[in-house]
């Protein structure tokens, strides 16, 4: 393990990159999930069809392929646009950090759409009717009645989605983000100890997923505290 000691600061720095990707992707993922669930639950047939197309495509396509399409696709489009203004330009891309976070959030957002949809449906209709009877508008009903009750139902599945997100960050090394897989590759090329280095990567990810599992467990207890005394 002495070989690892010299690389600890690099692993630490790239683990922070992973954490940053996770936070950005999480925000995006929740956005796609809520938009998708809203589209699937609203009365518009077109919105429903678009959301269904979104979930079908992104739940059936490998994450790696989505990542490659987003990164190389956007790079070719941006380069094309840039060359209109300046023919000297060779290559323009979205930074791998943002392209990567966006790509994995699209995939996991498709799963979150189904989770959120189920959670919104799980909120008792009587609650929404009561809110209407009290004179709450749709916006107030959403934020004060629906949302506080649905997140409790969505939590267990959403914890799994967060674990998927953190594990999918490992793919972003394929498009050149300098995260822990990249650090392991660099460390291997110097020390010639691939097993040790990738084992460190595995342990870092295991730590991340363990923290998420523990965090979701604590949140679940908090969310269900009103049921505790009922037992």
């Amino acid at each position, binding site marked *: 393990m002495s070989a690892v000691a010299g690389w600890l600061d690099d692993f630490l720095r790239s683990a922070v990159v992973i954490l940053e990707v996770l936070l950005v992707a999480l925000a995006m993922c929740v956005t796609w999930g809520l938009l998708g669930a809203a589209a699937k639950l609203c009365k518009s047939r077109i919105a429903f069809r678009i959301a269904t197309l979104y979930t*079908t*495509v992104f*739940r*059936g*396509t*490998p*994450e*790696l*392929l*989505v990542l*490659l*399409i987003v990164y*190389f*696709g956007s*790079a*070719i*489009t941006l380069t*094309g*646009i840039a060359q209109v203004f300046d023919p000297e330009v060779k290559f323009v891309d979205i930074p791998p950090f943002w392209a990567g976070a966006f790509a994995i959030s699209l995939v996991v957002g498709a799963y979150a759409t189904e989770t959120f949809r189920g959670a919104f449906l799980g909120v008792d209709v009587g609650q929404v009717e009561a809110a209407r009877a009290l004179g709450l508008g749709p916006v107030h009903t959403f934020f004060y009645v629906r949302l506080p009750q649905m997140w409790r139902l969505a939590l267990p599945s959403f914890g799994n989605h967060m*674990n998927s997100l953190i*594990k*999918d*960050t*490992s*793919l972003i090394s*394929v498009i050149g983000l300098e995260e822990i*897989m990249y650090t*392991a590759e660099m460390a*291997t090329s110097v020390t*010639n*100890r*691939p*097993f*040790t*280095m*990738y*084992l460190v*990567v*595995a342990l870092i*990810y*295991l730590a991340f*997923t*363990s923290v998420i599992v523990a965090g979701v467990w604590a949140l679940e207890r908090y969310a269900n505290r009103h049921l505790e005394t009922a037992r």
Partner: protein
Amino acid sequence: MSFDVSLVFASLPEIVGGIGVTVQLLVLSLLLGLVLAVATALMRISRIPLLAWPALAYVYVFRGTPILVQLFVIYYGLPQFAFIQESVLWPILREPYWCAIIAFTLNNGAYAAEILRGGIQGVDRGLHEAGRALGLSPRQRFIYVTAPIAVRLALPAYSNEMISLLKATALASTITMADVTGVARTIVAKTFAPYEIFISAALVYLAMTWLIQRAVALAERRASRYVRT
């Protein structure tokens, strides 16, 4: 920049050629993973700690780490040890094909074990007791009462796992395999037409996902024929 449809048609036969490798990776890992999952699930529900704990540790580690990392530990990592390069297994561990299958099997086994465990524990206790009342031995109760119902309960979640594994096989392209994604990446490197090629590859995966869903729907109908009136 423009979307060249003719390029899609020109490259589609080549991409379809990668299906063979993808299907082999999928089917072999699914079968081996299922064997591993059954063993792990039985160990997990066992009351003997010496059986239950290793199973729990295996499931925890393989569900808690990315499959790409597992693949790299096996393919790039294992040759670090001289004894592996000298062992009888080296002709297998040297091949990206077998490394991919080992990684996918271990990963799928961990997820499927939890699904099977859920299925087994979801079987109504009353049925178990009825089996006992009829004088069935524990082994008979498991084979004739618990297992058929557990399979039906586990099927929907297991079909999601099959699709996850199909998507995971795309990672084999990172260790030089020429599966659907691998072939697509090679063509993109030559043509630099990522939209056309990668979207064609995505369509191949979507078609395969659809096939899996149809097949499982049929299996589900058959497994639950006793509940239909």
